[in-house]
């Protein structure tokens, strides 16, 4: 792996060629906002546009998304210029119009000094709850879990993650990985005693044989046993009691 040096906010730092700007910035304690990027997932990022930064290279400047911009020799990144701030503010304002109820977005808006978006809010039929349609949930379900219970439905302003025909998914294992991965907490998951409800389907939870805590859906155990060959006995006890 080829190490190279590049400049970010006036500071010279070391990085691996082709590493993304956002990763290196975070490693060096430089804050760039960003919701849709998760380094654990191969195809993530590039959709919320919040991580916009100035990239200076060969005498040219362009605005790029830090989460998928590769670091090369001679690159200089500026994360906090007035241009970046202005454009980012516009993006936050658009997101706020799409998901006026999202706490994460509301917080970003407050920081950027936005009270109310100037754009029409998505309401009624177009109500997206808190979802910014970043696709992380879908990518996690596909890449990490491996079941692809959900996909990105429709397009344009109607774009939203969901199950086929908005029916309870037959392949979902109730693991909740999508809900944990969601940056805006947009996926409702209800744990209630020994049942869990997610994407319109109810799952029976497995109880720990020691502490009695419901800790994993039975369907998830089935899936892990089936795909990894792990012994079912392993799941008798919850991680805390193992």
């Amino acid at each position, binding site marked *: 792996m080829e190490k190279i040096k590049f400049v970010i906010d006036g500071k010279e730092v070391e990085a691996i060629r082709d590493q993304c700007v956002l990763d290196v910035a975070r490693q060096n304690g430089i804050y760039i906002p960003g919701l849709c990027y998760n380094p654990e997932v191969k195809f993530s990022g590039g959709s919320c546009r919040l991580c916009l930064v100035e990239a200076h290279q060969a005498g040219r400047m362009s605005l790029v998304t830090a989460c998928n911009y590769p670091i090369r020799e001679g690159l200089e990144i500026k994360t906090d210029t007035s241009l970046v701030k202005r454009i980012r503010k516009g993006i936050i304002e658009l997101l706020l119009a799409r998901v006026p109820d999202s706490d994460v977005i509301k917080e970003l808006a407050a920081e950027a000094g936005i009270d109310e978006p100037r754009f029409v809010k998505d309401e009624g039929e177009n109500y997206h709850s808190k979802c910014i349609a970043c696709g992380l949930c879908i990518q996690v379900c*596909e890449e990490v879990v491996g*079941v*692809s*219970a*959900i*996909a*990105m*439905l*429709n*397009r344009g302003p109607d774009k939203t993650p969901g*199950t*086929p*025909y908005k029916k309870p*998914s*037959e*392949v979902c294992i109730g693991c909740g990985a999508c809900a944990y991965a969601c940056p805006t907490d947009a996926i409702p998951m209800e744990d209630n005693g020994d049942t869990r409800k997610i994407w319109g389907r109810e799952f029976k939870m497995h109880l720990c044989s020691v502490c009695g805590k419901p800790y994993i859906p039975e369907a998830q155990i089935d899936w892990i046993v089936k795909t990894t060959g792990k012994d079912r006995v392993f799941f008798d006890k919850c991680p805390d009691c193992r």
Partner: protein
Amino acid sequence: MAIDIQKVDEIVFGYEQSKESLLPILQDFQREFSYVPEEGIKRLSDIFGVPESRIYAMATFYKAFSLVPKGRHTIKVCMGTACHLKGAPFVVEAIERELKIKPGQTTEDRRFSLETVNCVGTCALAPVVVIDEDYYGGSTSENIIKNLKRYT
């Protein structure tokens, strides 16, 4: 509505088992059944080993696909600039009132589906309504209702 699974299989097995075939198969479903049926997506998912959610998502992405059965006749009202200026919105309204459906919907008796499109390329005839393959130029809220009667 029951779908002929044999017909589904005929279409699916007519293609090479690759991701590239998904779109043309969905197009064939649309042509054959006038919509993309759930049974078709399920079967295709089983045979190709592609998640159902992925195929369903494709079907929701493209305007050319309908997930509910379409009517026997499709009414396309042009909403391009010329037609719009020459009164297309009134024509749509008249059809909506007559058939009691909105654009994108199908009448209960499955006789008509109503769509609005952006320019059919015959601006000289504005406002244009296309029913199946027939072009009706100079449409008004009166004559379009008369023209609908030709389709059963």
